[in-house]
């Protein structure tokens, strides 16, 4: 116990930071839902193009997912890598 910046304090803050980082999961959720909705509408208008629409939709959703995965990686780094050297 030397000062307020002891090990437990920094680790607790890291856990809180990991939780806050995962708020970024909201963005990809909204984006993927919007893409899925538009895809469903497109299939409804033109059922013959179902395969093409599905492929494009899944590709776009996977690209939109990247930011959420970055936040996941930041959270995992905060929890397990111990970047503050304690």
């Amino acid at each position, binding site marked *: 116990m030397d000062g307020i910046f002891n090990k437990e304090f920094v680790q607790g803050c*890291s856990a809180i930071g990991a939780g806050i980082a995962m708020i970024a999961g909201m963005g990809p959720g909204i984006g993927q839902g919007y893409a899925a909705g538009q895809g469903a509408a497109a299939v409804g208008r033109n059922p013959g193009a179902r395969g093409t629409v599905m492929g494009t939709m*899944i590709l776009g959703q996977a690209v939109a997912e*990247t930011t959420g*995965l970055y936040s996941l990686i930041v959270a*995992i780094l905060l929890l*397990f890598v111990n970047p503050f050297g304690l």
Partner: protein
Amino acid sequence: MIFGSEVLAALSGPTLGKLPDVISRGKDDIGEKLGINGYAYVKLFGYRFGITSTHIALLILLIAITVLAILANRVIRRADPYGKPGLAMTVIESLVNFIDNTTYSNMGEKHGGKFRNFIGTMLLFIFLSNISGVFGLRPPTADYGVTFGLAMITFFMIHINGFKHQKMKHITGLFDPIPLTPINIIGEISTPISMSLRLFGNVLCGTVIMGLLYNLLPKFLLLFWPGALHIYFDLFSGAIQAYVFTMLTMVFISKNFEE
């Protein structure tokens, strides 16, 4: 090590089994915290180089793919061209058809044929390593080394084909509007990084959640509940990510074919 030994044990997950106590766990080795166990290592320059569960899973996967390829070859060679195709022949034919269709429709009739072997190998390898969590292995794609290697293969394919088809325009294209040069260069560099992190993050997410589930649920729930999640995290997500990785590879490579 933040939450003590229970979560740590949880993250080791349904992998190749717990590490025997013979090998001491490193204090600051992130891989072991995420379930990558080391089995034998040498110390060089202060770092540990060794055989981890990723290497073992890759080796098992390699043998499995080789055996599958040999079996497929036998089935094709013995097929009767005038009779009714059997089950194995139908599966092989639909797989080859799928790979042919995706390459030809995404890369054009002219170039598709040259790339179907590469794309098919990539697709099979990533798909099998993503779903290997079902068979009790730790998925090799949940190791950043593997996905970064795959993304670097894609990176070199993109740029070698760029030079082949656009000659020096491939370099001058970077300076197209001169003020945007740094952004163009960063865009080229970030392609393999984002591709590898996407695959890694998806598979690691599934592995971590399954590991927590296996170790923190009571025994009787473990009989049926993880099966449903295995279907989603391993089969569905793995298939989608393998498809997306190869699809992005095809899109980025065929971007250079125009003009």
